[in-house]
């Protein structure tokens, strides 16, 4: 008997030992397998946690489910919600490595596909936003273990999980201040990117180096 997807949204024709008729519907495919628009955007709130612990308090637990991936400063990539989904008292699968106090935190479904046709190479592998002036400080990041400040306008972005190879694409932006200075955050040609890090030089339109307040780096592979 042929397998048929019926106009009613049911599947028939699966033989004994397989799935029973009508056990898979297009609605189920749509709602249970693929992410909705809101699921792709994730659930965003603020969180408070003490470094070295897994007990996260969020401003709102609405839309948060057990098993969701958790993204935030100091949250190890791959961390999920172990328990407490839907409430404001959440337990994570891994201890946080930094203390958060009402800082941004996001939750993404770990059980649904993003969308048909979206493949790994279209996803950002790592990103970071940091202030390279005064006391160099990282505002937010993903899959970045650290920034190395090597000198004036000279920074290395170190990846938590290495890229498959050094043939990734980096996108980096810097700032234009209110004066005449234009800055470009460029790959340092003398030190080519590696699978574990990329070194960048913030250059002015005069060719010198300068610290920048807004360094933003995104990596695709």
């Amino acid at each position: 008997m042929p397998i048929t997807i019926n106009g009613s949204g049911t599947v028939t024709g699966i033989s004994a030992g397989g799935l029973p008729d009508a056990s898979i519907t297009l609605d189920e495919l749509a709602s249970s397998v693929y992410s909705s628009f809101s699921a792709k955007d994730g659930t965003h709130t603020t969180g408070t946690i003490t470094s070295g612990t897994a007990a996260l308090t969020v401003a709102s637990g609405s839309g948060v489910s057990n098993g969701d991936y958790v993204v935030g400063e100091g949250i190890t990539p791959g961390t999920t919600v172990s328990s407490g989904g839907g409430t404001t008292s959440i337990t994570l699968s891994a201890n946080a490595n930094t203390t958060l106090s009402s800082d941004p935190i996001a939750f993404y479904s770990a059980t649904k596909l993003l969308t048909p046709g979206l493949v790994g190479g279209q996803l950002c592998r790592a990103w970071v936003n940091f202030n390279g002036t005064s006391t160099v400080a990282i505002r937010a990041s993903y899959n970045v273990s650290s920034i190395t400040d090597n000198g004036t306008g000279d920074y290395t972005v170190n990846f938590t999980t290495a890229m498959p190879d050094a043939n990734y694409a980096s996108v980096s932006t810097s700032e234009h201040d209110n004066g005449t200075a234009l800055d470009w955050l460029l790959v340092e040609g003398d030190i080519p990117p590696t699978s574990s890090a990329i070194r960048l030089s913030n250059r002015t339109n005069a060719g010198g180096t300068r610290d920048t307040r807004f360094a933003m780096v995104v990596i695709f592979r």
Partner: protein
Amino acid sequence: MKIIYTNNEGGVSVIIPTGELSIEEVAAKDVPEGVAYEIVEDDAIPSDRFFRNAWVANGAAIEVDLDQAKEIGHTIRRQQRAEEFAPLDEVIAKQIPGADAEAAEAGRQLIRDKYAQVQEQIDAAATPDDIKTALEVTP
């Protein structure tokens, strides 16, 4: 917590962890292999980066190398002088009609004298703040 080490150029590299890994894991992964490092408190890192490329590590402390700071000071002095020279150079080089070339040359001499004095002050500086003072930068 941050990590400092002496880099290939003889300066100081400062590692700022994101928090995804522990400080020990970051040190093991992000400090170049075989290089000695120190884990320091955040306040061990100067927030004044005026002489950033003159930073040197002295154990767990970061200091400013005075000779390198003077080199940086002289580079800034030359840039400042060139910026002040530029409009006067234009008058003389382009022979702009109606412009007073003699006044422009006199202006250039004043700039030369001013920056000769700055040069002497930088050379005689005993501290990085003396260099900033010579450059009219608030120490």
